[in-house]
């Protein structure tokens, strides 16, 4: 399948961060058209297009919009999730840095559909350059009088992965510690400041102008019936040409890894593919022909997630990889709910023991049981995310885990590709010596 050209259309030829350039390729004409449409018509179009959320869960965007209570007279809000912090994901960054106006146009159309006057784009704090570009584009579009009654505020996060979870994002945006809220009530009913709120990923919203442009029915024909459209796939790890590739959904992993990204370098063997960012179960080389769409990846035992592939070659110790992933989720656990806060820490302690060669076989069992104690019981999905990688590596590479116990050492003998990998520095401990 060839590379697709919808989200990033025109960006190779022109500097689309500039309003004139974007308008030169027909930018904001979808917005002009949408302004003449009723919210009902727009939501209908979103539904027809069957655009599914690109933030992870794949929930139909139009359905979400239809759940917003527009009749109550209370303000409604559109919140764009630009927190992109899932290890392996860097696609939304590309959208913001290269086609910011497409995202803004999508915001305006989507806001109009839910009769919202306020759009907040919550961008992760680390994306400073992208923030500057996006905020600049917002200013330019506002100055050009494109906003009408709608206002867009670009709001920077401050370093917390959990703020990508939609309700934690809302708390953070409200000026609190970014901790998830129980659902129900769901954001379309009670979201930002307690008002009906639509939350979507950057790539979801940036897809919206193309739906208006091509017509919803036409748009729905791109790619597989149940997962139409394109996605920017982030691919990283052990491949020849890592980076972002915009492809039609349904492209197989093989095509992406070998045809686009040039395969595994240095003659190494492919060992594992993590298809949706580090939080999802790993797949194995025999599954290379799985198409990259929500349903196919799920049928293969993993998740489409954030359309971000991490490719792992045969030099990597899966225990170390599990430990590194587990440390990330422990670091990012917000601390609100018990299973995640306590379980992620315990999981790391057990993995450290296993990795060091100090564990017994019953520790492997215990690790499994700690994981199932977290799975499905935490307040938000971060708890699950902490368990999926660990449990899937254990299931698919059981010998490596057992070898650490039986040989009382890492079978890679210090030559694993991620040997010596560090945990993040402790929060807030970097001090100037007295």
């Amino acid at each position, binding site marked *: 399948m060839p590379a697709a050209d919808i989200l990033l259309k025109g960006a190779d030829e022109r500097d689309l961060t500039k309003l004139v350039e974007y308008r030169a390729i027909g930018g904001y004409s979808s917005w002009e058209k949408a302004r003449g449409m009723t919210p009902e018509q727009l939501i209908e179009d979103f539904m027809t297009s069957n655009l599914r959320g690109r933030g992870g869960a794949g929930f139909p965007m139009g359905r979400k919009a239809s759940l917003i209570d527009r009749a109550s007279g209370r303000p409604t809000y559109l919140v764009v999730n630009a927190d992109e912090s899932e290890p392996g994901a860097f696609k939304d960054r590309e959208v913001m840095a290269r086609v910011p106006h497409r995202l803004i146009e999508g915001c305006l159309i989507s806001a109009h559909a839910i009769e919202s006057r306020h759009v907040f784009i919550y961008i992760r704090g680390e994306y400073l350059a992208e923030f500057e570009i996006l905020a600049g584009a917002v200013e330019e579009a506002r100055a050009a009088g494109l906003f009408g009654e709608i206002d867009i505020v670009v709001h920077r996060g401050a370093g917390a992965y959990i703020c990508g979870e939609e309700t934690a994002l809302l708390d953070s945006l409200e000026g609190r510690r970014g901790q998830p809220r*129980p659902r129900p009530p769901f954001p379309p009913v009670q979201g930002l400041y307690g008002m009906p709120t639509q939350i979507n990923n950057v790539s979801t919203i940036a897809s919206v102008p193309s739906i208006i442009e091509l017509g919803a029915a036409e748009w729905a024909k791109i790619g597989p019936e149940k997962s139409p459209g394109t996605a920017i796939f982030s691919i990283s790890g052990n491949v020849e040409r890592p980076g972002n590739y915009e492809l039609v959904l349904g492209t197989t992993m093989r095509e992406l890894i070998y045809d686009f990204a040039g395969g595994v370098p240095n003659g190494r063997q492919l060992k594992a593919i993590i298809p949706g960012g580090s939080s999802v179960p790993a797949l194995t080389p025999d599954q290379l022909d799985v198409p990259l769409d929500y349903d196919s990846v799920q049928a293969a035992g993993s998740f489409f997630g954030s359309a971000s592939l991490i490719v792992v070659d045969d030099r990597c110790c899966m225990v170390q990889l599990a430990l590194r992933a587990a440390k990330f989720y422990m670091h990012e656990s917000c601390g609100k709910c018990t*299973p995640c806060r306590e379980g992620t820490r315990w999981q790391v302690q057990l993995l450290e023991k296993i990795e060091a060669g100090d564990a017994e076989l019953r520790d492997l069992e215990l690790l499994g049981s700690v994981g199932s104690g977290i799975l499905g019981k935490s307040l938000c999905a971060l708890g699950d995310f902490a368990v999926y990688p660990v449990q899937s590596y254990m299931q698919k590479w059981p010998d490596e885990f057992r070898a650490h116990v039986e040989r009382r050492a890492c079978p890679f003998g210090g030559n694993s590709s991620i040997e010596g990998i560090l945990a993040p520095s402790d929060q807030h401990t970097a001090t100037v010596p007295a």
Partner: protein
Amino acid sequence: MSSPELVTITIDGIQLQVPKGLGLVEAAAYAGIEIPVFCYEPRLGPPVGACRMCLCEVAPGPPKPQAACTLTAADGMEVKTAATSAMAAEAQNATLEFILVNHPLDCPVCDKGGECPLQDLTFRWGPANTRMEFPKRTFEKPIPISPTIALDRERCILCYRCTRFSESVAEDGQLVALNRGAQSMIATFEDEAYRAPFSGNVIELCPVGALTSTQYRFEARPWEIQDVPTVCGLCPVGCNVAATTREGKVKRIISRNHPEVDQGWLCDKGRFAFSHLYASDRVTDPLSKVGKRRFEELEWEEALDEVERLARAAQGRVLLALSGTETCEQAAGLARLVREGFGSEAVVFPEETSATLDPFRLPLSAIGHAQVVVVLGDDRVVDRAPIVDLWLRAARRAGAEIVTLGPEERPAGSAPETVRELAAEGSELGKRLRDAERAVVIWSGPGGRGGALVAELAHALGFAGKPGSGAFYLPSTPNARGVREAWGEGEPRRPDRIGLLLVSGDEAAADPRVRELAGQADAVVAITMFADPVREWVDVVLPGTSYLEREGTYVNLEGRPQRLRRSVIPPAPDELAWIAKLGERFGVEIDPWVSPPLEEHAPLPERAAAPERVAPTAPTPPTAKGGPLRLVRYRPLFSGPAVERIPELQFQRPEAEIELSPQDAEIRGLTGGETVTVSSNGSSVQLRARVNRKLVAGAVRAAEEHVRGLAGGAVEVTR
């Protein structure tokens, strides 16, 4: 109100009908089924679903355990708790194990031991032995987060009850969670003391032994104690409390949730001031003055002889000064003794009271449900009736309009004019009060004629015909109404010469008016708990008792009679006992035993019938005309004879400072923090200046205890 829609749900196979929207935890309790919870506490606001202890199997719903505390009953819902669902049991066991992973097993030395929900749950179904072999999270040993509260972070299970209380009930924003994930911990800012009027509630909210009372630490084990249900006697709210006693001593005060009065919250005065019972200057025997500052102990019979002698010598010129802390029965006994026995009609009440509010009576909880509330008067609500402050905050959170018209909004002392303004036709705010179905007006400060002025306003606003609207007057003493009514008919009178001044209670003894009268009296008899304040001016001291040591009735600011119970035996016979004896000597029969027929959670009496017309009170001329600044003296929440004797509460007392408006500070070239001289009529005191951005120009504010030396209400402030 229409009756709520009923829905049918099934819990562990038991089908029941409950109101739609009822929380599942409550619904299960209806069916006699307990869903274990830690973080769930509806009084703290919407559920947070944090601890995950309540996980149950719920259909319809996703195929994984659901936090029951966050769900409400809907028709056809099927809930299975750990008793009937393997999924729920597995989930709850997992949660419990996770909670225990970092919880120390120091139950035998933990203050919570024996009354700890975590210990109970662990005992019932917890894992027999721990599978966790790594070092537990460690923290510094228990640290004081204030002189009254200790925090043991290792025991904390991060249910966030305490921080939610601080943030969304008391709204003091002082106790918070720091850091993230496994490093999260409860803290105050830079380890400063948690200094807020309601801080102690977090001790009761904590489901483990993480937050404990410094007063109660290591004092008693649950099986050695007795909880006596009674009512707090330190302010006119009358929170329902239980006094925990051990070996005849009060060890702590905990709440006994009266949903209409206190909702289970207590202020720190009510919670921590009980140990004034054991103050070193407590009077335990009758004392008689010998020499300038010396007393000698008397036998009871001798003491009664002496009082009898003084009373007879006064020949009817006896003046009784009341505190407003007497029980109704005690006040009635004193009234009969003085009137029928001593032949006097003279009495000094602690403050003015009025029955005119009775037609506008509401439970305090009605404030929480009001749509519009207006607070008038010069005093902060929290200083007079602390719990009312929490009801006001609850109302604001629920969306009510709360308008405070005190010295931060209007000139000091202008509340009577404000009443007339609001009652007048053209007032916008008055109209909102009139139009609302549930409106409340509150008088918080002096000059309110015991409630008559606010009653007048309520009448003018048409509240008599609106059962959801009403008025409150915040008295400055706990039982002023009860005491006034116990005295019976007749306006307070004062003899031209005072043969004997009978001072009832420590508050009366501390009242400057009473001190002045004592100077004019031939003899003074005081009934006080403490000797030091009366040493110089009293001839005979009879030991007084505390509200914790008496049986009897208090009538709170709502007009609700509530029962005080004797929690511990006082060190001397209680007042009523010797009043009866003294009565005998004068041929008056007084019943020394009282057992008021009141329920544990006393109901509020019906509203009185409203009068047809209320004659407007004549406008009061402002009392302190002419002075450049008008001094608002307030009696701080943390003040009075009991608080003064509690070392742990000293940090809560206000600084020796005077608050000025920015304008007044600027005119005088004063800045915050410097020492200034506050003078009036030739008297002066030195205080630290504090610029209060909100205060209106022309008013200055100071705690009564810091400006006692000042005569008059008009003051000047200079460097």
